[in-house]
């Protein structure tokens, strides 16, 4: 089934224009007055911590179900409290202060919260356990161990074991995986009630538009699981580092690559996700490739038409630019990816197509020929034939164009696009007989044997994510052990 064609698509939306104006305001980075944390939040944070430790990555276990069932009204405070927890882990018993500052990704306005003395004490105790530092002086001083039940003690042991192996991120990595698992495996939980409009200052909020066949189906608030996961990973301290530096952590890189590939495979687009990935990994060819693919997809008809047809509340704008602007971004990202890895044939293939769409046909044809020379995958070779054919056709090289289309037709004999291209090419050349013969080849395809997989063109915009399951598995595998029993 081609989900990208037949099923709803979710687009990440920009914050409302009100928030956007705040981002542009002079002296951005403003702090709001601290708000008091209401009762019960630390208890929820503790439940979350236990669920995180119990979750087996990739599985829809009880812990997964619990977190997937939390409404957005719980997740938004959790975003703040989880951030406070990992900040406290970083300080490990040192008084980080009961007033915490949290800044959701993509927003300049920070949120400040103040915990009561009791709340903050419990937060410190949980941080000692989650950080695997129960034996250290700061945690002894607050007698953290005396306040842990057997389950939290086991979490502390697991976190300690990870710490001793050099990974101080036991909770953070697992929590990010839980939330990304929920976002990927329980899409229903991502639909949150609430109006779409101007978000509260400093609050983390996301909106999503569901689209199908280029038309808006629904616009709604989105649960902030991705936002929580990204926020947590921003605190990752790579092996040997005393400070958060996620841009030098391979698990974080794998997480972004795998989840971004998944998003593109499922057409669950989110620009902020890859923008943040590029900030962390500005020279990673795979991240740059996926960012470029996303922009190329945004330039495609399914998303462009949906954006143009959308009914949006006042003040809400969708973070999708014109097709040419998106293509120019795609061109730049593909170019940078190829600068890093010149033998990245799939990136070069798409780069060639983007150049062609931007009207740079000579350059496109050259890049496509070079790309085809490095491709072995049948599907990629099909695209190569089609795209090179199109570029050559535009350049007036009809024989070369015909060769490209015919090669694609041979690779996928049931595909309709090469036959349409051959017919139209012949008709444009004034050869109506050849045009009719080509279209007859299409009409002669046995209907009972045709299916959704016939024509790779139909899933071009998701094909870059075809390895998502493998990438996710590789990323998650190390975290399937040392799970709280």
């Amino acid at each position, binding site marked *: 089934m081609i989900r990208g*064609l037949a099923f709803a698509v979710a687009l990440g939306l920009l914050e409302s224009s009100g928030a956007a104006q705040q981002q542009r305001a002079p002296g951005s980075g403003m702090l709001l007055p601290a708000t008091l944390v209401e009762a019960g939040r630390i208890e929820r944070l503790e439940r979350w911590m236990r669920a995180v430790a119990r979750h087996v990555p990739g599985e829809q276990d009880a812990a997964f179900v619990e977190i997937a069932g939390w409404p957005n009204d719980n997740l938004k405070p959790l975003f703040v409290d989880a951030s406070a927890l990992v900040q406290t882990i970083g300080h490990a018993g040192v008084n980080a202060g009961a007033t915490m500052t949290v800044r959701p990704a993509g927003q300049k306005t920070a949120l400040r919260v103040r915990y009561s003395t009791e709340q903050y004490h419990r937060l410190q105790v949980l941080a000692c356990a989650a950080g695997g530092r129960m034996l250290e002086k700061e945690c002894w001083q607050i007698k953290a161990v005396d306040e842990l039940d057997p389950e939290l003690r086991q979490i502390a042991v697991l976190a300690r074991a990870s710490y001793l192996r050099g990974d101080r991120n036991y909770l953070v990595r697992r929590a990010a995986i839980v939330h990304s698992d929920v976002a990927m495996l329980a899409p229903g939980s991502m639909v949150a009630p609430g109006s779409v409009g101007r978000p509260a200052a400093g609050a983390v909020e996301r909106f999503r538009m569901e689209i199908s*066949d*280029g038309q808006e189906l629904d616009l709604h608030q989105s649960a902030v699981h991705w936002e929580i996961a990204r926020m947590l990973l921003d605190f990752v301290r790579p092996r040997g580092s005393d400070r958060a530096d996620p841009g030098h952590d391979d698990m974080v890189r794998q997480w972004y690559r795998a989840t971004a590939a998944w998003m593109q495979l499922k057409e669950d687009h989110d620009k902020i996700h890859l923008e943040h990935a590029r900030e962390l990994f500005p020279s990673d060819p795979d991240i740059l490739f996926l960012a470029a693919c996303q922009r190329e997809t945004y330039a495609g008809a399914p998303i462009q038409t949906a954006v143009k047809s959308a*009914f949006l509340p006042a003040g809400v704008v969708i973070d999708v630019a014109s097709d040419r602007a998106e293509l120019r971004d795609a061109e730049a990202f593909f170019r940078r990816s190829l600068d890093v890895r010149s033998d990245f044939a799939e990136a070069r293939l798409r780069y060639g197509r983007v150049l062609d769409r931007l009207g740079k046909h000579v350059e496109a044809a050259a890049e496509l020929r070079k790309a085809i020379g490095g491709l072995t995958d049948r599907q990629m070779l099909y695209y190569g034939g089609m795209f090179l054919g199109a570029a050559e056709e535009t350049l007036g090289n009809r024989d070369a164009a015909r060769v490209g289309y015919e090669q694609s037709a041979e690779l996928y004999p049931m595909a*309709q696009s090469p036959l*349409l291209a051959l017919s*139209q090419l012949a008709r*444009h050349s004034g050869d109506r007989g050849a045009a009719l013969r080509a*279209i007859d080849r299409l009409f002669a395809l046995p209907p009972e044997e045709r299916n959704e997989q016939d*024509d790779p063109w139909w899933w071009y915009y998701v094909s870059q994510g075809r390895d998502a399951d493998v990438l996710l598995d590789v990323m998650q595998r190390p975290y399937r052990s040392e799970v709280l029993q």
Partner: protein
Amino acid sequence: MRRALAGLAALALLGASGAAQQSPAFSSKIEAVRVDALVTDNGQPVLGLRPADFEVVDNGVTQTVDLVSFDEIPLNVILALDMSDSVAGDRLSQLRAAGGRLLESLHKEDQAALVSFSHEVRLAAKLTGDVAAVRSALGESHGTGTTSLIDGAYAGLMIGESDAGRALLIVFSDGVDTSSWLRADAVLDTAKRADVVVYGVSVVSRLKPEFLRDLTSLTGGRLFEIEKTANLPATFLGILEEFRHRYLVSYTPKGVAKDGWHKLDVRVKNRRATIKARPGYLAGS
């Protein structure tokens, strides 16, 4: 993925039913040009016109009209119908009903064909005088997938080109293109070369049906933008009736180049009339 439309053709023979049974002649030479023209006065068809009543100007050169036919040439009616996800339930029923009513209204000598398109373009019924077969195929069509409107329109044009008969292509879509391989401008180029009149029916939305607008304009047809598909049967029948009221004006070009774009201007002499015809054609193709 978007763009514009199409025009005319050039055949050695005027399409009569006899010609339709011959092997298609794919000569690249222009021996005669035929132009489908709707002549109205205050919205009412003007009937009874003869060759001498018409004036055709081809690239600025006035031509001698050889022949004018009216309602006596069998039609090749090609239905190219959107069968994407959005066409389901009541809308599909209404579309089937509209197609069925149109097919019932064809004359015995007429032929019909059915192209269905979602992301997949399918010849559901080839061009045939067996209207029942086409109706049967229509009944079996169902909505699924995305919209390859441009690819579907191209397939319809090519069916029109496959037979020397007088071709009417009716394209219905309730959306815009999201998955075609072919570009709109390429298909519009084909339409300029084809002797097919395209009528489009689209459902009103925030997105303008630019491709259908251009395609119908270039071929001398018309675009109907309807609010509700409940009116679809009446719309389809209206298209057929209007098409039957068109004149087929034929002339042999003289004093003009054999290749390239020919701008056409069709007029009626000595009386007030509104003419709807294609604005030109690509010769040498």
